[in-house]
């Protein structure tokens, strides 16, 4: 099911360690002069997920499938927008509010492609990549429920 990326530098990493946005952007743009736009999205652990006050969040994933699923969506993004590069880093493990969870970087000649591809990738990461969040709060721990608004966000990219 996985087709090779057709353009640009693609980096997909699932890791416990934090990421350095500046270093990742530098890795994507270094010694290139064809990139006019880089969009980055960082997803951060919040203390106030919905109502309860969150003290920590644990991210579990399906090793192997997570990378494959992200790769499929990166390949689709590359087929839909003229991208010079894509970097996706998804952290797993236990996080405190304020800590980074996910990074999506897209590089293109023009801003519209970079913005749209980053949004597309985030919408699919939310709804289709096999990661699950468990929250810890004063009232206990519980698995985060999927949100209808995330499914709707992903659905808008469906090609008829």
């Amino acid at each position, binding site marked *: *099911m996985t087709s090779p990326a057709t353009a640009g530098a693609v980096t997909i990493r699932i890791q416990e360690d934090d990421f350095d946005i500046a270093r990742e952007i530098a890795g994507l743009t270094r010694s290139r002069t064809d990139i006019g736009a880089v969009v980055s999205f960082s*997803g951060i652990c919040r203390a106030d997920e919905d109502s309860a006050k969150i003290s920590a969040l644990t*991210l*579990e*994933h*399906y090793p*192997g*499938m*997570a990378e*494959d*699923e992200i790769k499929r969506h990166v390949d689709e993004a590359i087929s839909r927008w003229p991208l010079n590069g894509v970097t996706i880093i*998804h952290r797993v493990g236990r996080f405190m509010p304020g800590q980074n*969870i*996910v990074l999506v970087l897209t590089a293109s000649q023009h801003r519209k492609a970079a913005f749209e591809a980053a949004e597309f990738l*985030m919408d699919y*990461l*939310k*709804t*289709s*990549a*096999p*990661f*699950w*969040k*468990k929250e810890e709060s004063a009232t206990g721990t519980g*698995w*985060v*429920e*999927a949100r209808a608004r995330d499914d709707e966000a992903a659905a808008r990219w469906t090609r008829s």
Partner: protein
Amino acid sequence: MKLKYFAWVRERIGMAEETIEPPGSVRTVEELIAWLSGRSEAYAYAFEKPKVIRAAIDHTHVKSDAAIAGAREIAFFPPMTGG
């Protein structure tokens, strides 16, 4: 074939993976869920709302009517909440 469980499906069943040999009458993902549910209370609890459960065969999302023949690895998990 190998089965993998994630998030609260894993917690309810009480294990992360196992290797099984379902009978030949079990042809689809939903038949596999029904067969597993009959094994114990833990499986029945994990699969009590089968419509909520997502499945993947060999790392690809599949619907509940997907055939399991030839699958090396089937995974069951709740809707994804990453990103």
